[in-house]
């Protein structure tokens, strides 16, 4: 057992808030100083998360770095944080993408102070949602994320930003408010059965509710997460939000926010209500596969690169859901791996689109063509990221998709076969876009004056590209750390054998000594 200090995760959450507080005190005119502070805070947070990765003990699947403080003790509400192999890499993804997104915000000139403050608050919200182990606390972070994102889209977004921002908030809240009632109801049921009023996730895992109650609760949780993922019929907020958001907003939205939906399924909805989850799986799987095909087909028809990438997210997140629904080690591991992949490759795609948009102020595919001759570095990077996104072997996307299909095939071969055609469709729309943007004649005179990527832009993209290759070639360190936690989760969800709470003996007694 590694000696993990108490407060490690709190510090992880606190660094961005402190950065934001510092920004609040700085004068608006000194934009360079504002940038340095924001960049420093987010980069510092990344370094701190690397420290957590370093101290993380890969040998077991229980929560680590657990912190537990009474918040409203009379009401069973606690401040509980912890990471396991599932959330660890999502935390790292968040802390990695955030400094890059801030670096990519160089072109934001307007109201930069508020912009950076919202970015940092958003980071805390997302990290908090990944590490919160108390349902009340989780809900707080889950909602806290909404406000900065609302401002980022609404103030710094494109022409239809106000509509997109409101749609984003209303959709997300519609799901999450019902989840709030479900959370309260769950805690109430727990209190009635055990005389303990608590929102502690690990305690609530042990609750064995009758099937009909589980179904309603699962439905409320699943709706909230399905909107966030977004699963097929709930996806309509996503293209609007993505297209209108500023580049950094899109990167964070696609890179991290959507993962909270899939993470929510794996961490909350499925293990809390295992019977209902298993009953609902065929339906969710069907929606996931519909999403894969639908997202791909719609993406193919887009004339706006950003919108194309946005719809490709619907398709890719469908794969993640498919992997989760397989409920076996390969499928779930593949799903988590694919969450990271999607975060990196789609994040990079949005960054690249943002870079070309900064130069040309258009995102229409027809306006480009032949960029290869003018911007070779940009074009080759776009090509690599595209290959990662469509799952070319040797790059990270392949590992995730392969594991997902492997896992899902053993459960639902027909759905998996249909989903596999989504891979082909993905290759078609991405490569078609590439062909029209990069290759062909450089006919548009405006494109003939384009500058290739600057050093700053290369710095932003370099870490992502390195990871894309590294994760494609050598996935073992990632998968090994996920495995014990995934196995533990699966045990909870599949409930084999149907033993009451002490399914995992080290769960209950482990936190106190882990905390010190």
């Amino acid at each position: 057992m590694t000696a993990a200090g108490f407060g490690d995760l709190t510090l992880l959450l606190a660094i961005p808030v402190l950065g934001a507080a510092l920004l609040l005190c700085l004068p608006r005119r000194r934009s360079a100083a504002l940038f340095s502070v924001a960049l420093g805070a987010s980069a510092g947070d990344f370094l701190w998360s690397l420290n957590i990765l370093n101290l993380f003990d890969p040998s077991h699947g229980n929560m680590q770095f657990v912190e537990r403080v009474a918040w409203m003790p009379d009401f069973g509400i606690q401040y509980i944080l912890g990471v396991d192999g599932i959330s660890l890499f999502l935390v790292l993804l968040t802390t990695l993408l955030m400094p890059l997104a801030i670096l990519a915000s160089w072109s934001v000139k307007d109201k930069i102070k508020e912009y950076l403050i919202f970015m940092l608050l958003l980071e805390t919200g997302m990290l908090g949602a990944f590490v919160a182990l108390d349902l009340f606390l989780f809900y707080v972070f889950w909602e806290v994320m909404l406000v900065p994102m609302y401002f980022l889209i609404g103030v710094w977004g494109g022409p239809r930003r106000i509509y997109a921002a409101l749609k984003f908030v209303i959709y997300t809240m519609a799901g999450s408010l019902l989840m709030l009632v479900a959370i309260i109801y769950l805690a109430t049921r727990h209190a009635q059965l055990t005389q303990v009023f608590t929102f502690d996730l690990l305690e609530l895992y042990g609750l064995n509710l009758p099937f009909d109650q589980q179904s309603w609760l699962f439905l409320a949780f699943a709706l909230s997460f399905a909107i966030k993922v977004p699963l097929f019929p709930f996806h309509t907020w996503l293209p609007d939000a993505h297209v209108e958001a500023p580049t950094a907003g899109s990167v964070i939205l696609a890179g991290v926010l959507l993962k909270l939906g899939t993470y929510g399924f794996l961490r909350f909805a499925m293990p809390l209500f295992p019977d209902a989850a298993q009953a609902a799986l065929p339906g969710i799987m069907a929606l996931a596969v519909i999403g894969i095909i639908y997202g791909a087909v719609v993406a193919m028809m887009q004339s706006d690169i950003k919108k194309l990438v946005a719809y490709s997210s619907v398709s890719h997140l469908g794969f993640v859901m498919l992997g989760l629904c397989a409920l076996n080690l390969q499928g779930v591991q593949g799903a988590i791996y694919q969450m990271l992949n999607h975060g990196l490759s789609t994040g990079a795609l949005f960054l690249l689109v943002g870079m070309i948009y900064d130069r040309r102020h258009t995102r229409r595919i027809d306006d480009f063509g032949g960029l290869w001759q003018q911007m070779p570095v940009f074009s080759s990077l776009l090509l690599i990221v595209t290959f990662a996104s469509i799952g070319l072997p040797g790059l990270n996307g392949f590992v995730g998709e392969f594991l997902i299909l492997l896992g899902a095939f053993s459960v639902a071969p027909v759905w998996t076969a249909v989903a596999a055609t989504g891979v082909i469709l993905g290759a078609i729309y991405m490569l078609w876009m590439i062909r029209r943007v990069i290759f062909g004649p450089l006919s548009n005179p405006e494109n003939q004056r384009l500058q290739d990527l600057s050093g700053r832009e290369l710095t932003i993209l370099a870490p992502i590209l390195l990871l894309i290759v590294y994760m494609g070639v050598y996935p073992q360190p990632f998968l090994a750390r996920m495995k014990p936690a995934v196995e533990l989760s699966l045990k909870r969800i599949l409930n084999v054998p149907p033993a009451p709470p002490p399914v995992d003996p080290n769960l209950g007694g482990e936190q106190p000594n882990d905390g010190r």
Partner: protein
Amino acid sequence: MDVNLTPLVPAIQVLVTALVVVVRDLFIDEDEPKGVLAFYSLVGLALAAAEVAVLLTDRQESAFADSIVLDNFALFFTMIFLLAAALTILSSIHYVRQTRIHEGEFYALILFATVGMILMAAANDLMVFFLALETMSIALYVLTGMWRSSGRASEASMKYFLMGAFATGFLLYGIALIYGATGSTNLNQISAYLLDQPSEWPLYLIGGGFLLVIGFVFKIGAVPFHFWVPDVYDGAPTPVTGFMSVAVKAAAFAAWARILMNKLSPLAGDWMFPLWIIAIATMTLGNLLAITQTSVKRMLAYSSIAHAGYLLIPIVVGVEWGGLALLFYLLTYSFMTLGAFAVLTSLSEDKEPRENYSDFAGLGFKRPFLALAMSLFMLSLAGFPPLAGFTGKFYVFRSAVLAGHLNLAIIGVLNSLLSVIYYLRVIVAMYMEEGGAEGKGFRQSPFVYCAVAIAAIGTLYLGILPHIALSWSRLAFFSLE
């Protein structure tokens, strides 16, 4: 005869302050600055608050033949009234000067209304309750119409007066019927009668209870007796509107909790179902109508109707679970609503109300502090964590779930969703639209900023560290026997 004046100490303090203000006003010339009167009022309120803090133990005392009681419940509400009065006075110092409202009378009337409210929360006798209610109401009728050059204010005052008199009639009839059935106006004796002879109640006793409920529904502005609210709130001077939507509502709910939830609770079975419907209708209608408004002040009036609906949830849910939620929600609601009205007040300029959404356009970067605070209040009213409005709503919905009223909780959260639409519109205007009011009118006094800052700190504090206030709310409610 021994007279125990302890329960009256805070009320007497405020009353004396009001008299001092009135008298001191006589010695100041009409065209001289009268800021000193506001200062006197604030000092008096602060002293009263200090006295409340001293009295705040687990004591249970009564005076005047059990007609006034001193318990944590009364003190809790006294604190809310003092806070509301203080923030209202702070934010109106500049406003009354601009609008040429008579300052001495204005502050004195606020204090008189506060005395009435304090007595309402402490009244243990239906007659004392009635007198307290009238003390409060008459002061407010005048306050509403005090901006004499404004036609809207006069209309609002008249409307408020007529509607208030109407509600008073219901209350008085109810009190008379209950007195006829039980032979007393003292709540303890009425309660004893109800417990002594269950099920042998005459029909007119139940009718009396219903009339009381109707009177209260009028006073809190719940559907179907909400029609006066938007016009009165819209027409009244902005600080007075804030005072009405917080303190008057809190006073009405305090009396409701003591009289109907506690002492007359054996009768409650009869009116619970109508109240269930009223709660749902109030939230839903309030929110739907608020969406359609173009004036922020009017939107806040409808939003206050909607919040009356949320506040009815703990009442429907019942004593066991609802008490804590009701008190805590009122506390959180006070801070965020007073803050929102303070911001609105500070935007008002002579002859130019600046109350529309378009007047808020671009405020976010012209007046960053005001806009930031307003965003906090709007997000809090909409129920975003980690702000006071979220914790308040959380405990309201929790009480509904605990008591098995899952439907109320679900309708409540769906209503919160509706409310997000119009609260965010204020933020849209402040941060996402350009133009709006020019900088000329923005020379507010620092006092408004002070009021806004206090409300903002309260909103954040109750959202992040609500524990002390929660324990206090619980203690207060359970000090009712």
